[in-house]
């Protein structure tokens, strides 16, 4: 089994783990961690595309690599924005629950 296939399988498993965590974990920071796991799993899928597309003297197809770099930046910005929101929510309300039932009734 090549490193690329193995990385692809790892990516597939990471997507599964990430989705599982997103579904069952309640804490928003945990969800955010799982979002990052899920995201990196998707990036690894691009990684196997890159490696299997190695041609014309390149060990890996540069296009998916460039997409992953852009993707990592975007995922980081998303994490930063979500963390800021979460910390602000904690600061103003003292809780971090996302459950709408615990909102004050209108």
């Amino acid at each position, binding site marked *: 089994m090549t490193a690329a296939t193995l990385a692809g399988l790892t990516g597939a498993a990471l*997507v599964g783990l990430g989705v599982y965590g997103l579904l069952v974990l309640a804490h928003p920071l945990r969800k955010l961690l799982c979002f990052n796991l899920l995201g*990196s799993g998707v990036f690894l899928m691009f990684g196997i595309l*890159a*490696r*299997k597309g*190695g041609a014309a003297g390149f060990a*890996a197809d540069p296009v998916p*690599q460039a*997409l992953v770099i852009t993707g990592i930046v975007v995922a980081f910005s998303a994490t930063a924005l979500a963390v800021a929101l979460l910390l602000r929510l*904690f600061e103003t309300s003292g809780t971090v629950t996302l459950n709408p039932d615990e909102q004050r009734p209108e």
Partner: protein
Amino acid sequence: MTVIEILDIGLAVLVLGVAAWTIAARELFAAAVGYVAYGLLLSLVWVRLFALDVALTEAAIGSGVTGVLLITAAMRLRGTDPPQASEQLRPMVRVAAATLCIAIAGVLAAGVLMMADPGPTLAPDVARHLGETGLGNPVTAVLMAFRAFDTMLEKVVLILAVIGVWSLAADDAWGSVAGPRPLAHHQGPLTFFAQLLPPVGIVVAVHIAWVGANEPGGAFQGGALLAAMAMIVLMARVVQAPAVDRRWLRVVLVAGPAMFLLIGMIGFAVAAGFLAYPDGIAKPLILFIEAFMVLSIAAVLPLLVIGPPNRPQAGPP
């Protein structure tokens, strides 16, 4: 089975194990530290995929900067985990979720195994046009020429994220220094470290940004390392973060995308169109834009990590 296969399998098992740990860990902080370890292992995987540019990015962002962000957040949210009983799920729901996730992972794994080898690729197209950009690193050529529009907009995404983070400030804190209240203690060794490391780090960062034209590296990776140095001096309180309404800060923030847009628009007049580079001077133009991007990234990332201004302007308490 060869040695390298064993190593690859071991690495994959370790990556998945640490990932599972971050999900299963009881404490928030443990999960955050797990994620830092995970990011580092992931950059090893990228090295194995011969994607060094990605490995550098993952090391700097995935493990380094995101790690600081998550660890700091986990520390500030101490006591919010575990959640209330009302948010605990019934076992049935967990089983259903697990089944769904195994199905998703299974479908993707099947896709991976069925994927053609060699697969479809744009590598020959990149190789054919690489000469026109004057660059030696194909990934940089994709980022700065062929898909320059994505890269420019990605910088706009970063700026929007900064505005989004700043918009969470309290009204009376606007105009004050970005980030949370300062720390009480200055630690001796930390201060020393924060004075010693950045000069070295700046050299490394500039080197990585500069060689990015031909070798693995580039503006984003260099900028991210520069940002890391800024974060060290901020965390050690060697310098203070700037106030959010400083004009120079705003100029630095937008410098990268603005220069990208400006040169892109000039392309309308002197080259094949928007974001096209005139023949022969593509490489110097790209390096020129990258210099501004390094600056913007080095400013944006620390601002995203330290968060909105949080000190009322009325003066120190």
